[in-house]
């Protein structure tokens, strides 16, 4: 089987499991909901203010929620030594990584789609700039978080207190991507500037780190 075929099968398996159990989506959604509620009564902004701060709030909520999903990425494969079985099989490691990363992208994407209306309602948001740009920011930004997150989750499963470890190593490296997402979102919402530079930066970040992840994943998954 080719790299892509293996990745597709693996992704289909993960999505089917998630569809049946809905573990990751439910915990992420509830977590994000809690963050939104807590933020909204700790800030209680006017419409004008909320345009300024919404970029930060939205992405912080999504980031924390995404960590919940990312932490569960490999947990299922550790039970019954599935990961070990995968390592001795002739299937390329890269396919497994792609499947997991795309799976997480879909999960976090679903979360964002479901939570955005809530943000709009709670914060009384109306974008001044063009909304389609927000979609582009969300797509590039989510991939930036998820590709490194999936990779680092594969590192953090080998540590003590793994659930805490993931954000500790993921957040510092993701700072430029987060900055880009937050600032670009604010620019679009307030309509003050064009987020063109940030979109380029996110695209570069995605390309660079996807390459590094694919190049190093086999080494990391086979680490003894």
């Amino acid at each position, binding site marked *: 089987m080719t790299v892509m075929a293996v990745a597709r099968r693996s992704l289909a398996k993960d999505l089917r499991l998630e569809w049946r159990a809905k573990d990751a989506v439910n915990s992420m959604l509830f977590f994000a909901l809690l963050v939104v509620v807590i933020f909204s009564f700790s800030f209680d902004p006017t419409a004008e203010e909320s345009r300024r701060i919404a970029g930060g709030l939205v992405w912080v909520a999504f980031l924390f929620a995404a960590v919940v999903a990312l932490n569960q990425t490999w947990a299922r494969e550790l039970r019954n030594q599935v990961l070990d079985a995968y390592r001795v099989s002739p299937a390329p490691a890269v396919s497994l990584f792609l499947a997991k990363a795309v799976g997480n992208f879909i999960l976090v994407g679903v979360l964002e789609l479901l939570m955005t209306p809530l943000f709009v309602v709670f914060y009384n948001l109306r974008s001044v700039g063009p909304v389609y740009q927000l979609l582009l920011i969300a797509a590039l930004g989510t991939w930036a978080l998820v590709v490194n997150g999936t990779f680092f989750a594969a590192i953090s499963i080998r540590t003590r207190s793994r659930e805490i470890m993931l954000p500790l190593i993921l957040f510092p*490296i993701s700072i430029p991507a987060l900055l880009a997402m937050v600032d670009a979102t604010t620019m679009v919402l307030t309509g003050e500037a064009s987020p063109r530079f940030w979109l380029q*930066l996110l695209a570069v*970040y995605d390309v660079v780190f996807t390459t590094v992840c694919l190049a190093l994943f086999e*080494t990391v998954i086979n680490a*003894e």
Partner: protein
Amino acid sequence: MKRSSILFALVTLALLSYAFYQGMFVAPTEATMGDVQRIFYYHLPHAWVAFLLFFTNFLASIWYLIRRSERSDALALASAEVGVVFCSVVLVTGPLWARPVWGIWWTWDARLTSTLVLWLIYVSYLVLRRFVTGGQTQVLAAALAIFGFIDVPIVYLSIRYFRTQHPQPVIGGGEGSGLDPRMWIAVLWNLAGFLALAVLLVRLRYSLALAENALEEAHASRALAPQQAEGGPAADPALKLGDKSR
């Protein structure tokens, strides 16, 4: 080995003392900032040495992934640890200098913020090294080190854009263009002194890391020993530790 370390430490001490003399007494007092500016002779060399150490960490990590040599991993660990110490000095001397000159401790300016993010990245690297279980520390740490170093230019680019976009709360106050040649001499002496200090510390930490590895191995083979043969004192692998770590 031991004697050369002591010799090197003495040379470092001499260099640092001379650099202190140059920075505190020979270099002229800065026109607008006064004596406070002399912290510059510590601030800048530490920053350069920290960057150099992080670069060393990057190269050693790549080399480890290619060759799997224990020595390059020990070098990566040593340079990251000493680099974090130097970077911390930069982050402490910066605000100490900024407060009297700019009137504030901290500003989210491009260079300050980039240095802080750099520090965060390498602290997370050290945290990871502490927490990995099993014998996979070296590979996982090397992978993270590569991610971290690749991130540095992107961090710098993003923060510079972020800061030029928004109005800066405080402008200028830096050393500006054209240093007095005597100031340059003080900078270079301090750079040499702290570079020597960094090399000394990295060397000590490096041999400590190798000794730790050897000790761990000795413990592991000692634990296995009774099953392989009735281990008499002569077969005790820990006894070989002495020549291994040297």
